[in-house]
């Protein structure tokens, strides 16, 4: 009975994380399109939500490998997963509150790593694997996207600079709609699978699924796809405003280049099994598209705040995950700790949303 209740709480926390992942990362997909007026805000998030949902059904291969390589999966318990999810949700909400784009995947890995360290010590987390699969790509992604978008925008300006603006604007508008759609599909495929993997791991730990016959149940796929799509539709408008208008004042060619080159970088790196964070790629791409036109066009103070959030993501989510595990373990290994933390978290969430309300649609650049 206690084990069943704990499973329900873990699944609920995973879907809540999936929702925050959707609404936190909406900006990566739609901010440039909204900023350049290629798409109206509500149309953009509707397309993004629909394609996030569809993307979740494209592949299930990543879901089967979540955490393998970084964590000693044999020692993961439902309480550790729960604490990691709470840590990731907390960091997603803090960065949303300050309008800072940060990687939800890194928050999840950081949260679970922190809870794992608190629960079983350093032997539970493989440091080299963490650097190889998370830290190194986090350094590469923004620099690579910056360079690709910078080179691309110089070529684009050279090709269309002397053309009549009407056809050019319409053309890049179509290009932005296509690149927005590709990014949304890729985001649904990548990120919904992480939640599916976490829920399936909890089902294995609970004994509902045999570890020898690991598969993702259909209800897990549908619920993860729905949660990320709902989160995307809700729209993290604070982050959309930062990415769309505060880093650079974007023209439609820059918007297309940042998104188009960004999508190409994400998919090219995925092909080699070297997944880069969508957040890092798109933010780096926007900075590159701005800096290539004029270095001072980039608001480097905003860029610095974003970089600081990226550096802090894993340690901060880890600290929140460790703290959550520590508090839960005060009440023993049962379900009481997670129940109390869930009630506390829901109360804190409610008060934040009531006091701050939802930010209005972003102002166009």
């Amino acid at each position, binding site marked *: 009975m206690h084990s069943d209740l704990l499973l329900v709480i873990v699944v609920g926390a995973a879907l809540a994380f999936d929702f925050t992942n959707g609404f936190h990362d909406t900006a990566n997909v739609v901010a440039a399109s909204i900023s350049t007026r290629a798409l109206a805000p509500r149309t953009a998030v509707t397309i993004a939500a629909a394609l996030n949902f569809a*993307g979740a059904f*494209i*592949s299930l*291969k*990543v879901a089967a490998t979540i955490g393998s390589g970084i964590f000693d999966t044999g020692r993961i318990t439902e309480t550790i997963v729960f604490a990691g999810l709470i840590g990731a949700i907390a960091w997603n909400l803090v960065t949303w509150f300050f309008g800072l784009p940060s990687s939800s995947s890194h928050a999840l890995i950081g949260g679970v790593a922190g809870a794992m360290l608190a629960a079983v010590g350093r032997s539970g987390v493989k440091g*080299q694997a963490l*650097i*190889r699969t998370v830290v*190194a790509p986090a350094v*590469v992604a923004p620099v*690579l*996207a910056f*360079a*690709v*978008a910078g*080179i*691309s*925008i110089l*070529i*684009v300006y050279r*090709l*269309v600079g002397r*053309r*009549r603006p009407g*056809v*050019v604007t319409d*053309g*890049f508008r179509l*290009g932005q709609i*296509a690149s927005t759609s*590709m990014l949304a*599909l*890729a985001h649904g*495929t990548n990120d919904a699978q992480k939640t599916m993997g976490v829920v399936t791991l909890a089902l294995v730990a609970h004994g509902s699924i045999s570890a020898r016959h690991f598969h993702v149940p259909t209800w897990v796929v549908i619920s993860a796809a729905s949660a990320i799509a709902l989160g995307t539709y809700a729209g993290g408008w604070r982050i959309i405003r930062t990415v769309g208008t505060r880093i650079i004042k974007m023209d439609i*060619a820059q918007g*297309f*280049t940042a998104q*188009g*080159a*960004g*999508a*190409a*970088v994400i*998919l*090219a*790196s*995925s*092909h*080699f*099994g*070297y997944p*880069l964070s969508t957040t890092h790629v798109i933010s780096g791409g926007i900075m590159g598209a701005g800096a290539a036109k004029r270095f001072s066009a980039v608001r480097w103070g905003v860029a610095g705040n974003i970089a600081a959030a990226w550096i802090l993501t894993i340690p901060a989510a880890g600290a929140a995950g460790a703290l959550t595990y520590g508090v839960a373990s005060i009440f023993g290994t049962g379900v009481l700790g997670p129940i109390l933390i869930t009630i506390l978290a829901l109360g804190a969430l409610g008060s934040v949303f009531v006091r701050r309300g939802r930010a209005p649609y972003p102002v166009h650049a």
Partner: protein
Amino acid sequence: MIATIVDTGTLGKVILYSLLAGVGVSLVFALGVSSAAGLVDAVRERRTLAGALWGLTTIVCLAGSLAAIVLGVVVMSSK
């Protein structure tokens, strides 16, 4: 030391192919947009041969862009 932690071979491929794909997609699409603008100008000025060449370039670039989208979906589904 770095090579033991970071897979430099894969990283090199990622950088090369990301540059090729990112710059390539932008180049092909922007060439298509530029050609479409050239086509509109040629039609307006009744330059038939130039219009046909701009139209052909537009179609080729559009096909290239659509092929990139299809390739992207294939990469996503094969992960």
